[in-house]
C-alpha cells in the first residue's frame, strides 16, 4: 500500500512538472510555461563561439534566445550567473544507460565452451536468423527505461544526453538517443533510432559459432551479404521465408554504424580489422577506440573512422618487488606512460572523435582524465567538441543537442570557471530546461575577507575572517586562530581554537579562546549564533570587506611529452621510427652459399643484394655502393620457410562448425607478436599461418613474411596463391571434447561425408551462379545469395585456392585423396602427415606434397605409428617434403629439425636444407620468389655462423627483402635498451608510489596463446591458453 502511494506520488509529481497530452491527470492541472534567464555569464555556445557577459533564455525545455544584451522577457525567472560559465551538456555516444541488466557475456574463445555441451544452432525462438549473436532485431528504444541513479552519476560529470544500446551480440541492433532527465521515458527520447551497434563479441549467445575473432568477422560479412540478397528478393523465398534479422539489417542500413572492436583485453588492430569489414560493404563505422591508437596512429587515421574515446588510463602498478615487476611487460609499462597522450595524438592526426564515459570505473575521474589528456597534448577545443558537437553530429541529433542555439534543447551545464581548468567544478546541469544541482554549494563564491563581530551579550569583539574556500578560513584577532570552517552553499560553521598552547594561555583568562559559530549566509552579509568555551550563548554577524582576487587558474602548462617514444612494434625489441630497418644494398662476401638449387653448395662465394632482390651470385663481386658483410667462414642459405605456423594471429581456430571455409586468417593478423622476432633469430623469413584443426574444412590461410615492425597488411606475402586449411581425424571429430561430441562428424567415416557434402553443395552453387550469368545475358535477373563458405570451395575446384590438409593416418589420407579426385581437384599439401610413409606411393601418384614434423609421436592415439623416418621415406618415394614447426618454439630451430632427417633416414645435408627452403616454397607456389639463392629472387637470406644443419649454428643476420630484420650484434643493444627502458619506467612507477600516488597490485601481462589444438604446448609463466575449441 505504501509502495502504491509512493508510486502515485511519483506520477503526480511528474504530472506537475509537465503533463503529457495523452495521460489523464489525477489532480489539478499545473502546466507552467516557465522561462529562465541566465544573465552575466560566459556562454560557450560551441567550441568556436564564446559570448562574454551573455544571457541565455530558455522556455519549456528549449533555448529561446541567446546573446549579449538581449532583452529578457518579463515572465522570466532571472538567475544571475556572474563569474559562471555555461556550456552545452555533454553527449555520450556510447552508453548502455537504461538498458536491461546485461546478460552474462559468453564471449569468444571461452574455455568454458570446451566443458559444456556444444550448441550448434540458435535457441532464439521466432522468425529470426540462424545465429544467436545477430541481434539486429533489438531496438534500444523498445527496451529503454529511465534509471535515475545512473543518470545522476552521468549528470554530475556533465552529461545531458546519451546514445544508449544493448551491449550484447555481434550486431546489437539500434541505439536510441535520450536525455538524462528523470521524466517519463516518452519525454526523454531525443531520437528513436540513431545508430546501429556492432562488435566482435557474441555476448550472451550460447551458440558455438562464432568462437573466434575471424569467425565473428565472417559472420558479419555473411550477414551483410545475406541482407543484400534478402532485399533483392522481392518476396520471401520458399526456402528462407521471413527473416526478421535480415529485414532489420536492411531497414537500418543507412543509420550511423558504430563498432566496438574491443575483445579479449584490448587489441589495437581490431580497429583496423573492423574498418575493413565496413569498407567491403560501403559502411564507414564509427569505431570505439582501444586507448592504444597512438601506437599505430597512421594505420588508425587511414581508416578514416571517427573514434569514440574512453579515457580510462592504466593505473600505476606496485612494482617495488622485482619479482612482481618481472610480470609486467615493457608494452604495458610504456602504455601506462603514454596512454594519456592518446587523445592528443588522435587529434593531431586529424581524426574526428567523441569522448565517452563508457567502462568508467570511477565517475569522479572522468573530468580529471580529460584534463590529463589536455596536459598531454589534447586541445581544449577538441576536448569540448568531442563531448558535445561531434557525438551530436555523428549521431544525427545536432539539430537538438550538442551546442547552445535557439531552438535546441536546454541542455547545459553551469560551471564556476573554464570547464577544463583544474579548480573548476560543475555547479548545475540543466537538462530539458530542468535544473539538476551538482555542486550548488559552490554557486556563491564566498572567498574573501570579512569583518566578523561576536556579541556575547555584553560586548562585541571584532575579528577578521579570511575565507580561502568552502572548507578553509582563518579567524584573526591578535593571533591567528586554529579554525575549522565549512560552508555548504547556505549554512556556515566556524569552530575556533586558540593556537596558543596552554602555558601561554595563563594570565589571558579574559580572552575567549574557543567558540563554535553557525549560521546562514546571504551573499555579502552573514549572521548566526553559537557558544563560547564556557558555554555562553553568543550571536555573530559578518560582512564582506573585500572579495578575494579571482585566482582562476588556467590549465597546467602542457608537458613536453616526446611522442617519439613510440616503438614499432609496441613491444620489447621494437624500435623507434628512426631505427626501423630499411631495405639496403648488401654485398655478402666469401660465404659458403647453400643455394638449394642445382648449383648446390658454392664455397667462397659472394652474393649481392639490391632493391630487395638477389642480383648476383659470383666470386669476387665488388660494389662500393653496397654495405659489405664479411662472411668468411660463414654459411649463407635462403630464409627458412615454415609451412605450418600459428604465430602473429589474434585467433586460430573457428571450431563452431564443421565447415568454416568462410573464415580467414588474414582478418586477424597480429604483426606485434614477439614470436616474429624470435623466429627471425632462428632464420625464418616466411611463414604459412594456418587455421587450426578443429574442423574438417577450416579457414583460409595467410602467407606472411616476417617483417618485424610493419603493420598487418605489410606483413602479408604479396602476390601468393590462396590456400585453405582442411583437417581430418581426431581433432575434427572432437575426440578430446570433455562433454562428449555432438557436432557432426564423430568418425572418420563422417569426415569423408562432410567433404563430399560440402563439395556437392559447392558444385550446385557454382552451377546456379553460372546459370544466373547466362540468364543475365537474356536480361533475366536471378538473385543469388553470395555464400562466403561455398565461394572458397568453388575456388578450390577451379584451382584458384589450394588445400593444406592436416592428416595423420593412412585411411584418412587415402579417402581424402579419393574425394578430391572425384571432384577433380588435388590436395596440394598434406600437413603433419605422420603416416604419410605408409601411403607415400599413392600420395605421389595424387601429386600431393608433404609437410611434416621431424620426430614427434605418441602424443595421441593417431600418432602412435608416427616415425622419425617419415620424411626420409616420403622424400625417397619422390614426394616434395617439408619439415614444419606448428610450434612457436620449434620454429626457431627448424634447421635442426631438418637436420634430423640426416640422422633418421640418411638424407643428404643439401636435401635436408631444402626441406625448409625450396621444398616448402614449391608447395606454397612461391618458388619463383623465395626458397633458394638464385639471381632475381627475393633477398630473403640467412647468414649462419656454422653449418646451418649443425646444432651449433646460429643466425647472425636474417634478411627479408634486403632488409636486415635480425642482426645478432644489434640484438645485444636491443636487450640493453629493453632493460634500461623497463628500469626507467619501473622507477617512475615506484616514484609514483613514494610520492603518495595510487598504485594497484601488479597486474601481470598475460599472453593469450592460440594453438591449433593438436598437441600439448607447454605454457610459459604468463601464458593463458585459449582455443576456439567448441
Amino acid at each position, binding site marked *: 500500500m505504501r509502495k502504491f502511494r509512493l508510486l502515485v506520488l511519483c506520477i503526480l509529481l511528474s504530472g506537475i512538472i509537465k503533463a503529457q497530452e495523452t495521460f489523464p491527470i489525477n489532480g489539478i492541472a499545473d502546466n507552467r510555461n516557465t522561462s529562465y534567464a541566465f544573465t552575466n555569464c560566459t556562454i560557450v555556445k560551441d567550441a568556436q563561439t564564446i559570448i562574454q557577459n551573455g544571457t541565455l533564455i530558455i522556455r519549456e525545455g528549449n533555448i529561446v534566445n541567446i546573446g549579449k544584451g538581449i532583452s529578457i522577457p518579463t515572465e522570466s525567472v532571472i538567475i544571475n550567473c556572474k563569474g559562471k560559465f555555461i556550456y552545452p551538456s555533454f553527449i555520450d555516444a556510447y552508453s548502455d544507460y537504461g538498458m536491461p541488466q546485461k546478460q552474462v557475456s559468453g564471449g569468444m574463445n571461452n574455455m568454458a565452451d570446451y566443458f559444456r555441451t556444444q550448441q550448434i544452432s540458435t535457441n532464439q525462438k521466432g522468425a529470426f536468423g540462424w545465429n544467436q549473436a545477430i541481434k539486429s532485431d533489438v531496438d534500444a528504444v523498445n527496451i529503454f527505461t529511465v534509471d535515475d541513479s545512473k543518470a545522476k552519476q552521468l549528470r554530475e560529470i556533465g552529461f545531458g544526453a546519451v546514445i544508449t544500446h544493448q551491449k550484447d551480440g555481434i550486431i546489437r541492433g539500434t541505439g536510441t538517443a535520450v536525455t538524462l532527465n528523470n521524466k517519463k521515458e516518452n519525454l526523454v527520447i531525443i531520437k528513436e533510432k540513431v545508430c546501429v551497434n556492432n562488435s566482435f563479441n557474441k555476448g550472451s549467445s550460447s551458440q558455438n559459432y562464432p568462437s573466434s575473432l575471424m569467425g565473428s568477422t565472417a559472420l558479419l560479412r555473411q550477414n551483410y551479404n545475406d541482407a543484400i540478397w534478402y532485399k533483392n528478393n522481392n518476396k520471401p523465398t520458399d526456402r528462407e521465408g521471413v527473416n526478421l534479422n535480415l529485414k532489420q539489417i536492411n531497414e537500418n542500413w543507412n543509420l550511423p554504424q558504430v563498432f566496438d572492436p574491443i575483445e579479449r583485453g584490448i587489441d589495437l588492430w581490431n580497429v583496423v580489422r573492423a574498418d575493413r569489414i565496413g569498407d567491403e560493404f560501403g559502411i564507414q563505422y564509427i569505431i570505439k577506440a582501444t586507448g592504444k591508437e597512438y601506437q599505430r596512429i597512421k594505420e588508425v587515421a587511414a581508416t578514416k573512422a571517427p573514434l569514440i574515446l574512453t579515457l580510462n588510463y592504466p593505473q600505476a602498478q606496485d612494482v617495488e618487488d622485482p619479482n612482481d615487476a618481472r610480470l609486467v611487460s615493457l608494452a604495458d609499462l610504456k602504455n601506462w606512460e603514454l596512454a594519456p597522450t592518446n587523445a592528443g595524438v588522435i587529434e593531431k592526426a586529424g581524426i574526428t572523435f567523441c569522448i565517452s564515459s563508457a567502462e568508467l570505473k570511477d565517475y569522479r575521474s572522468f573530468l580529471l582524465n580529460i584534463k590529463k589528456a589536455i596536459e598531454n597534448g589534447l586541445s581544449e577545443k577538441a576536448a569540448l567538441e568531442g563531448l558535445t558537437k561531434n557525438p551530436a553530429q555523428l549521431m544525427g541529433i545536432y539539430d537538438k543537442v550538442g551546442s547552445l542555439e535557439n531552438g535546441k534543447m536546454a541542455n547545459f551545464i553551469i560551471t564556476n570557471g573554464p570547464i577544463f581548468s583544474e579548480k573548476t567544478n560543475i555547479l548545475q546541469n540543466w537538462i530539458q530546461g530542468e535544473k539538476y544541482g551538482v555542486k550548488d554549494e559552490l554557486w556563491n563564491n564566498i572567498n574573501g575577507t570579512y569583518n566578523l563581530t561576536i556579541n556575547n551579550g555584553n560586548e562585541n569583539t571584532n575579528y577578521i575572517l579570511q575565507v580561502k574556500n568552502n572548507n578553509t578560513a582563518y579567524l584573526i584577532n591578535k593571533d591567528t586562530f586554529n579554525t575549522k570552517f565549512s560552508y555548504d552553499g547556505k549554512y556556515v560553521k566556524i569552530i575556533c581554537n586558540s593556537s596558543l598552547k596552554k602555558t601561554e594561555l595563563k594570565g589571558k583568562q579574559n580572552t575567549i579562546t574557543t567558540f563554535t559559530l553557525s549560521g546562514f549566509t546571504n551573499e555579502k552579509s552573514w549572521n548566526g549564533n553559537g557558544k563560547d568555551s564556557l558555554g555562553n550563548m553568543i550571536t555573530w554577524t559578518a560582512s564582506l570587506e573585500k572579495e578575494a582576487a579571482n585566482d582562476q587558474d588556467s590549465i597546467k602548462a602542457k608537458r613536453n611529452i616526446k611522442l617519439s617514444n613510440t616503438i614499432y612494434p609496441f613491444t620489447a625489441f621494437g624500435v623507434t621510427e628512426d631505427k626501423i630497418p630499411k631495405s639496403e644494398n648488401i654485398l655478402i662476401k666469401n660465404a659458403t652459399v647453400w643455394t638449394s638449387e642445382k648449383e648446390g653448395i658454392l664455397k667462397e662465394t659472394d652474393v649481392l643484394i639490391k632493391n630487395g632482390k638477389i642480383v648476383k651470385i659470383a666470386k669476387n663481386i665488388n660494389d662500393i655502393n653496397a654495405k659489405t658483410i664479411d662472411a668468411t667462414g660463414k654459411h649463407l642459405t635462403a630464409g627458412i620457410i615454415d609451412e605450418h605456423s600459428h604465430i602473429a594471429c589474434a585467433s586460430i581456430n573457428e571450431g563452431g562448425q564443421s565447415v568454416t571455409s568462410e573464415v580467414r586468417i588474414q582478418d586477424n593478423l597480429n604483426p606485434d607478436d614477439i614470436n616474429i*622476432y624470435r623466429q627471425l633469430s632462428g632464420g625464418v623469413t616466411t611463414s604459412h599461418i594456418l587455421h587450426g584443426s578443429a574442423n574438417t574444412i577450416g579457414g583460409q590461410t595467410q602467407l606472411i613474411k616476417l617483417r618485424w615492425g610493419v603493420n598487418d597488411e605489410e606483413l602479408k606475402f604479396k602476390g601468393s596463391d590462396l590456400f585453405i586449411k582442411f583437417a581430418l581425424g581426431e581433432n575434427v571429430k572432437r575426440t578430446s571434447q570433455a562433454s562428449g561430441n555432438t557436432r557432426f562428424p564423430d568418425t572418420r567415416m563422417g569426415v569423408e561425408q562432410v567433404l563430399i557434402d560440402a563439395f556437392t553443395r559447392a558444385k550446385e552453387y557454382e552451377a546456379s551462379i553460372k546459370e544466373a550469368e547466362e540468364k543475365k545475358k537474356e536480361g533475366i535477373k536471378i538473385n543469388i545469395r553470395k555464400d562466403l563458405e561455398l565461394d572458397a570451395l568453388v575456388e578450390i575446384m577451379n584451382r584458384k585456392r589450394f588445400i593444406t590438409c592436416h592428416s595423420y593416418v593412412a585411411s584418412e589420407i587415402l579417402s581424402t585423396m579419393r574425394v578430391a579426385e572425384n571432384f577433380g581437384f588435388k590436395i596440394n599439401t598434406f600437413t603433419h602427415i605422420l603416416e604419410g610413409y605408409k601411403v607415400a606411393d599413392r600420395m605421389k601418384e595424387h601429386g600431393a606434397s608433404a609437410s611434416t614434423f621431424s*620426430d614427434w*609421436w605418441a602424443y*595421441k592415439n593417431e600418432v602412435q605409428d608416427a616415425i622419425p623416418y617419415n620424411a626420409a621415406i616420403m622424400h625417397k618415394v619422390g614426394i616434395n617434403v617439408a619439415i614444419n614447426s606448428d610450434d612457436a618454439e620449434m620454429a626457431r630451430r627448424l634447421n635442426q629439425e631438418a637436420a634430423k632427417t640426416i*640422422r633418421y633416414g640418411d638424407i643428404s645435408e643439401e636435401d635436408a636444407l631444402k626441406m625448409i627452403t625450396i621444398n616448402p616454397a614449391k608447395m606454397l607456389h612461391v618458388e619463383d620468389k623465395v626458397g633458394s639463392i638464385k639471381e632475381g629472387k627475393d633477398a630473403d637470406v640467412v647468414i649462419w655462423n656454422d653449418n646451418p644443419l649443425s*646444432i651449433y649454428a646460429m643466425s647472425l643476420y636474417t634478411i627479408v627483402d634486403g632488409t636486415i630484420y635480425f642482426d645478432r650484434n644489434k640484438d645485444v643493444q636491443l636487450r640493453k635498451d629493453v632493460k634500461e627502458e623497463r628500469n626507467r619506467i619501473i622507477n617512475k612507477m615506484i616514484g609514483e608510489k613514494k610520492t603518495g600516488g595510487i598504485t594497484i597490485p601488479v597486474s601481470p601481462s598475460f599472453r593469450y596463446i592460440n594453438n591449433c589444438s593438436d598437441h600439448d604446448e607447454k605454457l*610459459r*609463466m604468463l601464458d593463458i591458453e585459449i582455443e576456439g575449441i567448441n
Partner: protein
Amino acid sequence: MKKIIITAWLIILNNILNAQETIYPVQQQNQLTFIINGTIHIGNGTIIENGIIKINKGKIEEVGKNIAIPADDVQTYDAKGKHIYPGLILPMSTLGLQEIGGIRSMQDFNELGEWNSNIRSISAYNADSKIINTLRSNGILLAHTAPQGSLIGGLSTIVQLDAWNEEDAGYKKDIGMNFYMPSLISRPIGRGYGMGNQSNEAGKEALEKIEQVKAFFREAKAYTINNNGKKNIKLEATKTLFNKQAKLYIHCDQVKQMLIAIDFVKEFNFNVVIVGGSESWQIADLLKQNNIAVILGQLHELPEVEDDNIDQPYKLPSILQKAGVLFCINDDDSQNRGRNLSYNAGTAVAYGLGKEEALSTITLNTAKILGIEDRTGSIETGKDANIIIADNDVLDMRNSIISKAWIQGRDINLKDKHKQLYERYKYKYGIK
C-alpha cells in the same frame, strides 16, 4: 626371381622376428669385453683418444690407453673413428607410466588427491613400453620416472632400460619424494578468457598450501622419531627423506617458489633438488650457497616472458655453470618423449657451455643429482658399464647415430618400433 623371393622372405622373417615383442632384454655376459680405438668421453670433462675400455661382469674394470687385451675368449668391439660416451640419463620423466598421450586409460602417472607421499612410480612401470626402445636408440640407458601430481606426487625411481618387468628394471628405487609446488602468480581463473577476472587470492592460497606441506613434514618428522606404535603409511613414506636416503624433488620454476624451496633445506635439512628452474638464472648464487641442485626442463622452450632475451632458455645452462650450481638437463617434451635429450645439451653448447660440460649435464651431473654417481654417469673404473657408441658427436643430431650400447655390460639390442616400421616400408617401396 627365386633370389628375390628368398630375400623378401628373409626381410619379412626379419621383421617378424624383430617386432618389439621380440626385442629381448639381454642376458648378463660373463665374457670379458673390450672397446677399442674410439674417442672416449669420460663424462667428467676428460677425453681419451684411441682409448680402451675393459668391461668385466657388467662393470668397467679399466679405462685408459695401455690396457692389455688377452688373446683368449674375449669380445672386442672396434670403435675406430667413433665416439664413446657414458649412457645418457633422462633425469625426470613419466617413462613406463604413460604410453600414448591423450588416451585416458594410458595415463598412469597422476593419482587423485594432493597428499600422495606413499605413491610409488615403480609399481606401475611398464618395462615393455614402446617409448623405451626409442630412447635407447638415442643413447638414453637410464631414466628417472616419477609420479606427477598437484602437490605431493609420491616416490620416484631410477630404471635401467633393458628389463623384463618392473622388478629387474629398478636401478635404484624410491630415491625421491616429488613435490609439485603450486604457482604463486595470481592468474585469471581457469585456462582461458578472463581479463578482469583476476584472483589476487591465488598467490595467497598457494602460500597457504605450501605452509600445509611444511606442516605435513613437521608431523612426519615427529612421526619418524616416535609413532607411538601407530602406523601411518603416508608419513612412513617420508622416512627416507629424513635419513637422506631420498631427496626432495621440488617441481617449480618461479623465483619466489625457489626461494621457498630453500626453506625446505633450512628447516628440514632435506637434500633438495629443483625440477624445472627456468627462472633459476636470477638466483644462481643463492642456489649454489644452499647446495641446491637443479634439473632443468628442456631448453627447447620459449622465454618465460615477452621481454626476456630471445635465447634466455638456451643460455641458462652456461649461467648456472658459471655460478657453480650443480645442474643437469632434461627433455620433458611430450611430443618427442625425451629422445632429444642430447640435442638439448647441444643447444647449450651453442650458447656458451663447453662440449664436455654439456655432456656432463646429461651424464655425470645427472648421476650426482640422482645420487647414483657411485654406480654410473661416467666411464670410470668400478662403475657399471653403461656405455654408448655414437658415429660422431652425440650432441649434434646431424651425425649422432648410436650404433652400440651396453647397460651394465649387457650388449643391448638397439632395434625399436620406429626402425622396424622404417624397415617395413623401405621394403614396401624397395628403398635401400
